[in-house]
């Protein structure tokens, strides 16, 4: 893998470790220690990914996130020592692509980076059909099938599933689903999304206790699963012979 990564963290040891660790995996790392520097760097150069720590000395991390979103389309993974779900939800609502609680291992971070970059690539290519196992969502023809069998969804159910599908693999918050599916003024009632997701799961034959298609993130939202990338687990592919 390769790409330019902007690391924003006030801890020198973390910047150094990430430069070494990510550099060893083929990334070109630019590391800065504050929000102002980060915004300047994002304006001056184009990055493929931003790793943003929320606890910055100069500008509040959420503000930096908002301003980064205004000037760059590069995906942002938020890194924070705050394990509070409210911070997670807020960061995702402000447009973060993922949220990783510190401390983390480098392998965990690499897996998240791969997922985010892959998602970015698939959105860019504009795949018309999103597939998860036996589930296929044909965005062009508004057709949902499981194992080739067509599933009838109500317009609301389809809209919610469509939004998860075009962001397949990404954790989508209740707030965002409400805004995207019901409209801006429907914000605030997560029982709506819970109810609709339960209906979709029932129609798709997805057991919530063993979700194959839609995963729940308690307190945050939902994520449409993606098929594991064979390239990520080369040791799990057994070739006969």
């Amino acid at each position: 893998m390769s790409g330019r990564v902007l690391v924003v963290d006030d801890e020198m040891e973390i910047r150094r470790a990430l430069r070494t660790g990510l550099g060893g995996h083929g990334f070109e790392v630019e590391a800065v220690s504050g929000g102002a520097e980060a915004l300047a760097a994002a304006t001056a150069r184009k990055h493929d990914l931003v790793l943003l720590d929320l606890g910055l000395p100069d500008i509040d991390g959420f503000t930096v996130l908002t301003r980064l979103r205004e000037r760059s389309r590069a995906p942002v993974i938020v890194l924070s020592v705050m394990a509070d779900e409210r911070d997670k939800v807020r960061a995702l609502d402000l447009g973060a692509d993922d949220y990783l609680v510190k401390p983390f291992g480098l392998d965990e971070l690499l897996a998240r980076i791969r997922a985010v970059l892959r998602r970015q690539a698939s959105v860019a290519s504009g795949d018309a059909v999103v597939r998860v196992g036996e589930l296929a969502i044909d965005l062009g023809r508004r057709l949902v099938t499981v194992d080739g069998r067509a599933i009838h969804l109500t317009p609301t159910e389809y809209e919610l599933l469509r939004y998860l599908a075009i962001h397949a693999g990404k954790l989508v918050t209740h707030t965002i689903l409400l805004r995207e599916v019901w409209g801006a003024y429907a914000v605030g009632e997560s029982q709506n999304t819970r109810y609709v997701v339960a209906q979709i799961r029932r129609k798709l034959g997805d057991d919530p206790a063993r979700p194959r298609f839609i995963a729940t993130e308690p307190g945050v939202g939902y994520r449409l699963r993606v098929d594991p990338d064979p390239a990520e687990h080369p040791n799990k592919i057994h070739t006969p012979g």
Partner: protein
Amino acid sequence: MDATARKAAPFLFALAGVAAITVLIGIVRTRYAVADLSMVYLLLVLWLGARHGVLPAVVAGVAAFVAYDYFMVPPYGTLLVQGPNELLGLVLLLAAALVTGQLAASLREASARSSAVAEEATALYELATGALRQPDVAQAIALLCERARALPSVRAFSLVAVESAAAVVAGGDPLPADTLRRAEWSFGKQTSVGGSIGVAGIELVRIASDRPQPLLLPLAAGVAVIDLDASRADRRQRRLLAALLSLGSLLLDRRMAAFQARRASDLEESDRLKAAVLSSVSHELKSPLAALRTGLTALTGEAAGLDSEHLELVQGLDREASRLDRLVGELLTMSRLESGQALELEARSFPELAGAVLDRLAPQLADRRLALHLAEDLPAVMIDELQVDRLLSNLLDNALHFSPSGGRVEVGARVEGDRLLAWVENDGPMIPAAEMASVFDKFWTGRTTGTGLGLAIARLIVERHGGEIEVRNRRSGPRFQFTLPLAAVESARR
């Protein structure tokens, strides 16, 4: 003027008045032919009754009767009466004088009484408004106690406040410890001793005792302790005392409210402080751990080029750093739960939550046989989903640790009564009977790598939800089971 003279004056007025009127009538009768002028005496009687009471009025009435008979009724100069007409006139005069005097006197008494009541009411009103306007409750209570002690029959008066179950003197005379204890008892039982507060005032119960005990009267937020001289406590004083006590009750209420507000703000302050310390400790401990783990895991990459021995060393260090991180996290969770952080209760689907936790633990569960007993139509539970998420994670973490590779892990739930009974089971070794009771204790751990907090946190979470948790050895292995409250039917929509 001394007291005797003051007492005699009305009677002198009566006699002098009768004499003057008699002279006046005599003069008038010599000039004009007026048949009967005896009613003029009545004016005097009326005035005396209204001004000085019934006795001077009666004296004046009798004197008028005698004088009129002697001077105006023929034969003049004697007390004899000539005929029935004159006799009737005289008797009427006497009767009218007596009745008038009586009436006037009772009117006077009534007006005196009502003005006394009005005076009392005004005094009470002034005391009440003064006390209630007083910003310092203690000052207001002192004012009231002073007023009560000024009553002639009150030997000692105290208001006792009962705050957080301990009695303290809020105002008035100091009390010995045993009286305070009795006051506390009286408040706790809401039982008065030696009397009670009735509609018309304080009603006393006479107790024959060589050592008279003070009166104990429980109020809304305290007790009134009164040493009352029963022989001197007339109705007026007892009524006044009752009125003072109802005001005292209000003031004790206010004192209690002020006390609670102060305590609530103290608690809030200490909670805020605790949360601030926790959050700061969390940040201070986690940041260096984050640097450690990022650095150590960067070293395990191929690019770092460590040989296998060094690689193992670095991986071991990372495991220790992870463990330290887990311990810090669990200590924080524990103290947050113990500091009573409020739960965010909402109706949630238990199978969906369990599915999310199992999904997250999928890598660790990959080589275990997972058995699920989670019917999709289980009713919703009323829970803080993030806390129950942690509860399930901790129990599964425990089950994963004790079950062998290839072993069986079971998660299930069913409705039992008005609760959900859920369990996490593994096929690892049985828990020795002697340890069954202590597995949920803080820092108990059956493994070398554990923090000893996972199960203690699990128990705290279940208890905060009003449920119970226990461990049972089943034939298949140890089962941790717990209960959670079901959501009300109308909010059970999933």
